[in-house]
């Protein structure tokens, strides 16, 4: 079945390749500084520098617990991309992971009215294409 408006997929770059390999195995991978232990979101911080201590040593890839809390969210009623029209309304959430960094994703299995500040959430994985599996979040039951 072809989709006239496929959802936009994230670019896989040399810096994020291992992240997207991880999600295919249902693992949420973070970069951890080998010098100070600072965890960072591999999708927003360029690979080879630590915002915690400035170290240029290669970070190690570590698996996150997948647990965190809601920093904020929005429920989208007007989208600017046709691929998302049929999902309206959908929730975009920013989750603060136990390890420290924040992640942006969609929130599943809950309605807007039920979300509270700092509500505990956990990661789930949704296959988008053969190459990309997206981490998403749902409330901890």
């Amino acid at each position: 079945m072809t989709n006239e408006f496929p959802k936009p997929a994230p670019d896989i770059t040399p810096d994020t390749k291992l992240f997207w390999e991880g999600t295919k195995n249902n693992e949420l991978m973070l970069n951890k500084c080998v010098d100070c232990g600072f965890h960072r979101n591999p999708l927003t911080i360029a690979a080879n520098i630590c915002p915690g201590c400035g170290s240029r040593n290669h970070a190690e890839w570590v698996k996150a617990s997948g647990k965190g809390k809601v920093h904020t969210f929005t429920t989208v009623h007007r989208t600017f991309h046709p691929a998302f029209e049929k999902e309206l309304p959908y929730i975009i959430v920013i989750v603060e992971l136990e390890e420290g960094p924040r992640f942006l994703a969609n929130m599943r299995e809950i309605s807007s009215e039920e979300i509270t500040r700092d509500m505990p959430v956990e990661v789930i994985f949704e296959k988008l294409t053969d190459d990309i599996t997206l981490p998403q979040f749902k409330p901890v039951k």
Partner: protein
Amino acid sequence: MSKNECAIVGLGYTPQGKCPDWTVRELFLEASTNAISDAGMKTHDIDGVLVELCWTDPMTQCWTLQQDLGINETSMSANYDSMGASGGCKIQLAQWAIQAGICKNVLIAFVEKSATAPAVPYRGSPGATVAYGLHGAMHGIAMAAMRHKLLYGTTEDQLGEVAVTFRKHANMLPRAQMHAKPMTMEDHHNSRMISEPLRLFDCCLVSDGGRAAVVTSAERAKDCPKPPVYIMGYGQGHVKMDLVERNTLVDTGARLSGEHAFRTAGIKHKDINVLGLYDATTHNIITQLEEMGFCKRGEGAAFVEGGRLGLDGEFPTNTSGGMLSEDYLQGWTGIPEVVSQLRGDCGERQVKDAQIGLVTNMGGFIAFHSTLILRR
């Protein structure tokens, strides 16, 4: 560097709203020639040109404008990019170039063409945000507004008060896009939800139009036909752009920007007679008031109640209607309006005895911020 050494002496406008027959390049030229003649100058008096690129036509630049104006050489010519905050930043740069003795009269120009040009496809910031349906500034700002609501209980009535107040101002200004369209609180609450907690009437307009200004030294300003509006205080603050990398979603560059502006101006909040605050959404008004110290953190939503931002209020704000109700010309909605108030040119919507004004610009996912404190 000290205050009041430079002044804004020229303002240039163009048709605004929907301008399908105008190119970006023509709008730049129209705004610029109008600002130069408002300053009582000739094109050859200009020796500095600062523009910000219009995404609809990024090939119109500082050099095309200089060439179109027939200016053989300038001492400063640049495209400046702190996104929506660029207007205030460019006026500061013009001031520094004049104070440094590099330039005499600097032209600053801006064009927006989002009403009648095809939208630029949204590519998102680095990372995967597009795959999650985050497409454009409103979704991002909505998450900041939601954080404010989660922390402080900001209500729909409080957001609505900002929208309704600014609309009343626009109803007094014929050039405003919403001039003929009054808005009640009920209208606000009935407008369709865009991205919770922001409704359509919490979000800025879409517009075409150009604006320009001329900055010169206080000494030369005395010979210009219009009352000079002096640059009294100035500041900038820029925080990380990516939403997930912020300290928190309610922190923008406004705190640092405001701190610099009040320090350089040497005045207190109560000395401000008129404000022009960047209103991409109603939420941005509330957080800027908090971050810039007009009230405490968490009290901004209550602060806007009771007509405090209205023409008869304690802090008349966005007296043209702002980007919510006049037009979306980014920083160039607010800057010319505050200058006009200080010139005493605002007619029906004139703030009585306006001596000192404050105007802010914001850019990106509300990450860039510039502030000007101006006096007549």
